[in-house]
């Protein structure tokens, strides 16, 4: 808590006061007390792949605290992201729709204006006090779109030790300002386009970073990607706890926290650095034609770093849950733990900026703890992040959203449907408001998963995997051309055709 600086405290206190002041805009008789209505806390861990969590039987013990939390939660074992990077993945979670509907599938994309009103915060209504925080700037673009329905949006740089995010200052034009300033004029991973200010900014930022690292992080302080923000994990989690603590006193709340870790760069503390120098040998998978052709040993090294960072995040998560439990908040809150997408260390790919949609990058964790839940419930049927919004509305007695493409999650109002089709779309190179012609589309149906690559160099192609008997997706069943395979292909193509119909000739 020592690094949760006075500045951060003041920032949080100021924001909270602002939120409380804003909450007065809603007449008090319209607000119920949190005791009557359950709160909702959503924790999104950026780039957390279910395939690297011991909670889901990964060999390395990366998540003992998530496992402990799972003892009092619904655990979804076959849960999928809507996209393979933050923009589409988060938009799917926040809107309950697939990328072809919300259209936020290009880098730093925005949700289609016609869909902006269809989101989690609006759906919960003003009876709930709504807070949103993301350390990743991309979801903040969405928060800007939903701003009229969010009482408190914590700044992206909250709880950071060092930050120099510039785009945030241009409140009415954050995406463009961020793209121009933080990703170009003051970019940090290649030469900044601003010769005078860019250099001064870099010297200042790096000097502050070097001074801020107390030595607890041997690979440098965790950083929010190429955003000029450095933080300590414990500060971020302490900040989340403090923010929740402040909210608890006033009214029922919906609090959405999108945390950067375990997204790259993977920088654990001394305690977790090198803890997985073991004899674990992941399955070697063939490089994909759309992979980056990275060498297997390098991918394994990156995987080890990632696993260590995941373990570090898990430890902090454990502390946060413990504090929520001690304060009694878990007794009247739904706690959702999930991710926006996964992370790959296979087939030549390191990370998630890829055209590929294998399970490593689409299979994400989902745990939902209901108020006062004492037992673990395991759900194995396929589910998707489109399902989270309708389920939360159902659980909290909010009016249902007829626009969502999701269904109620099994165990929380829904029933297991093994024949349901779920989709993940990667289309960052496709214009957002044009038919989807250059994309990868994955469809999970029962135990099977079909992947379709279209519009890239070379011929369009399909792959088909039996996820139950081929967990590592090594045996492509598509060439067998069974009738089942043909039926899946027809369904996938028909789905793509129907979602493209709105955008004219395909």
């Amino acid at each position, binding site marked *: 808590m020592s690094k949760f600086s006075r500045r951060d405290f003041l920032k949080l206190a100021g924001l909270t006061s602002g939120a409380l002041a804003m909450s007065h805009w809603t007449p008090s008789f319209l607000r119920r007390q949190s005791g009557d209505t359950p709160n909702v806390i959503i924790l999104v861990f950026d780039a957390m792949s279910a395939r690297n969590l011991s909670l889901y039987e990964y060999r390395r013990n990366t998540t003992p605290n998530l496992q402990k939390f799972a003892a009092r939660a619904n655990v979804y074992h076959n849960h999928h992201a809507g996209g393979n990077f933050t923009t589409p993945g988060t938009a799917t979670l926040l809107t309950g729709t697939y990328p072809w509907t919300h259209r936020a599938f*290009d880098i730093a994309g925005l949700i289609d204006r016609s869909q902006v009103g269809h989101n989690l915060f609006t759906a919960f209504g003003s009876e709930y006090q709504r807070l949103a925080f993301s350390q990743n700037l991309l979801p903040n673009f969405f928060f800007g779109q939903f701003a009229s329905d969010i009482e408190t949006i914590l700044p992206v740089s909250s709880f950071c030790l060092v930050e120099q995010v510039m785009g945030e200052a241009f409140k*009415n*034009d954050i995406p*463009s300002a961020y*793209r121009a300033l933080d990703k170009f004029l003051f970019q940090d991973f290649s030469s900044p*386009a601003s*010769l005078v200010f860019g250099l001064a900014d870099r010297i200042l930022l790096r000097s502050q*970073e070097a001074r801020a690292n107390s030595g607890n992080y041997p690979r440098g302080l965790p950083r929010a990607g190429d955003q000029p923000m450095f933080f300590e994990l414990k500060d971020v989690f302490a900040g989340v706890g403090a923010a929740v603590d402040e909210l608890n006193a006033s009214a029922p709340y919906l609090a959405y926290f999108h945390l950067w870790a375990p997204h790259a760069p993977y920088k654990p503390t001394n305690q977790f650095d090198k803890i997985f120098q073991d004899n674990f040998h992941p399955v070697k998978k063939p490089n994909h034609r759309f992979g980056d052709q990275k060498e297997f040993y390098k991918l394994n090294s990156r995987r080890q770093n990632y696993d260590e960072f995941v373990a570090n995040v898990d430890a902090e998560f454990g502390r946060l849950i413990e504090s929520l439990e001690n304060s009694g908040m878990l007794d009247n809150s739904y706690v959702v733990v999930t991710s926006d997408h996964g992370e790959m260390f296979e087939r030549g790919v390191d990370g998630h900026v890829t055209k590929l949609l294998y399970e490593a990058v689409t299979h994400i964790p989902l745990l939902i703890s209901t108020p006062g839940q004492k037992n673990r419930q395991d759900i194995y049927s396929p589910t998707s992040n489109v399902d989270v919004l309708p389920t939360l509305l159902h659980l909290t007695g909010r009016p249902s959203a007829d626009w969502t493409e999701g269904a109620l999650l099994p165990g929380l109002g829904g029933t297991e449907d093994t024949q349901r089709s779920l989709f993940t779309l990667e289309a960052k190179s496709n214009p957002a408001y044009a038919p989807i012609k250059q994309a990868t589309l994955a469809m999970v149906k029962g135990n099977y998963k079909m992947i379709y690559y279209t519009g890239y160099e070379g011929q369009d192609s399909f792959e088909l995997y039996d996820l139950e008997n081929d967990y590592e997706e090594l045996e492509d069943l598509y060439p067998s051309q069974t009738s089942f395979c043909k039926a899946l292909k027809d369904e996938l193509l028909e789905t793509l055709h129907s979602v493209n119909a709105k955008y004219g000739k395909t």
Partner: protein
Amino acid sequence: MKLLQLLLGRLPSKKSILGIYAVIVTVIYSWTLFTSFYKLPSWLFYLTVGKILSVYAYAFSLNLLESVLALAGILLLDLTLFFVWKNVGEFQSRSILLFLCIAASSVFRLASFGDYGAINFFLTAEGAWWLTTFLLGLIVSALAPKIHWVRLVLDGLAERLIIFLYIYIPLSFISLIIVFFRNIQ
């Protein structure tokens, strides 16, 4: 009052100041454009033309501010530190040389940022680097203009680069208007 009059009296002609500004603008804007060429393929792939233009609008707006500040800095140096050098005829070439030295040092410095370990090493030498740059700049800008052909080249360069002011400055004002309108409610 006397000091002010003295300082104002030391100010060079508007033409000289314009020449220096032309060099500053050319270097600063060209650096931004040069850097943007590395980004452009990716932008063309992921962004619409409107979004790309908005990036340039922010960039040119900032460039305008940078160039004005750089000119102010150079003029300030001329009025203070360079005060002892009384040859007003060398003002333009001296200022251009000093700016070019600092700009070249900045570019080189930017290229020398490396990974986390390298950064710590880099930061320890920060003060020394800029002191050296400044001293070197002073020596070069004090001595080089004494060479006739150097002065001719620099003055000629400044004169020819004035054309860029007619391109970049109007573009910057249009950019400022675009940024303004993108940011009003």
